[in-house]
């Protein structure tokens, strides 16, 4: 169980969290590699179906950031 690496899908707003993720990269900050970022034009585009599909495909967690 200690070896468990959760798969997380992150729906990120192009103007906010996606840019923040970019900045984190520029600052050479480490963040987990098990995070899969999906860029949305706006978190207002977030769709319930996409959240469910992420879980159905095996995500352990879903993050919405914007």
């Amino acid at each position, binding site marked *: 169980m200690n070896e468990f690496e959760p798969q997380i899908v992150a729906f990120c707003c192009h103007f906010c969290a996606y840019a923040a993720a970019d900045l984190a990269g520029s600052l050479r900050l480490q963040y987990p590699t098990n995070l899969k970022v999906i860029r949305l034009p706006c978190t207002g585009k977030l*769709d319930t179906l996409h959240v469910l599909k992420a879980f159905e495909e095996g995500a352990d967690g879903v993050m919405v950031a914007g």
Partner: protein
Amino acid sequence: MGDCHYLEGNVRAERRVEYAKGLLDQIGLGADRLEMHLISSAMGREFAETTVEMTERMKQLGPSPLRRRGNEK
């Protein structure tokens, strides 16, 4: 909240996240597996910290019940 490029996109997203959390509880995955965070474009450090923290929380929750079932087979 509301400090959004499209004015209120993240406010609407939050309502949709609440709805999806309700669905996740009904499905049996649990609302805890879905999180919403407000992170502006200047918050690179916070983004990294939030993802590290969320990964920790998901580790505590353990694998998704869908994956656990799949692993047994």
